[in-house]
């Protein structure tokens, strides 16, 4: 086993680990956006305008 061969092999292992990390990050499920109907409606105080 040559020294340079071991170094090359080590660098490939490192590249594989980095790629695996990247894939995990990329495949992390994204939290689904809250459905529109789930969002509570804003409470706006009713305002009555009387004619007089």
């Amino acid at each position, binding site marked *: 086993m*040559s020294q340079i061969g071991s170094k090359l092999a080590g660098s490939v292992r490192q590249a594989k680990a980095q790629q695996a990390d990247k894939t995990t990050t990329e495949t992390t499920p994204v939290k689904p956006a809250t459905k529109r109907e789930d969002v509570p409606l804003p409470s706006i105080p009713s305002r009555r305008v009387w004619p007089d």
Partner: protein
Amino acid sequence: MSAKVFAVSNQKGGTGKTTLSMNFAAGLARRGRTLVIDADPQGSAGQWTGLAPDNRPFPVSVIAVAGNLAREVNRFRQDYQYVVIDCPPTLETETTRLAMSASDTILIPVLPSPIDLWASVRLAQTIEQAKLGNPKLGAYLVINQLEPRNALSRGMQQALAEFDIPSLKGGLRRRAVYRTSAIEGASVFCLGKRGEAAAQEIESIIEEVI
């Protein structure tokens, strides 16, 4: 007749995909009817045959496919014994995905350089994904431009063992005749004594994969 289909692929440019495709196809043509599909938009395989003199045409037909590659390959399977697809230098295209789904074997030329090795790491994952749809798909790494006196070249086998893809025992040495064959529109099999050693390398690759 149902052709054996080979894709020559690597996401990195300049690894020798077309050189391997053309000489490999020329070697296969000595065994049976062979077709090269130039799936690389650069069109290097087509340019290669265009440089062949009229009295000595390249021994293999080269076609460029614009439509659905997998469908075209299946169409040619009946008429040829071997089909070689020269893939584009990227994994992100539909063409590469279709080439992997339509092939029996993928040959991946890699240069004896750390940067080329690192760039090839992602290819292993892509092949694993392709195998989900094409379980019989085989893949081999092929060392290109090997220089036996160079320490980096000698360390390659050790580094390639880290990949989840097997590497062929045979590889291509760094030889000027491979470049000469392109400029002459020929294969190393047609260059007489000049191409003898290179032709033997291609022959050993063929013996290993068919």
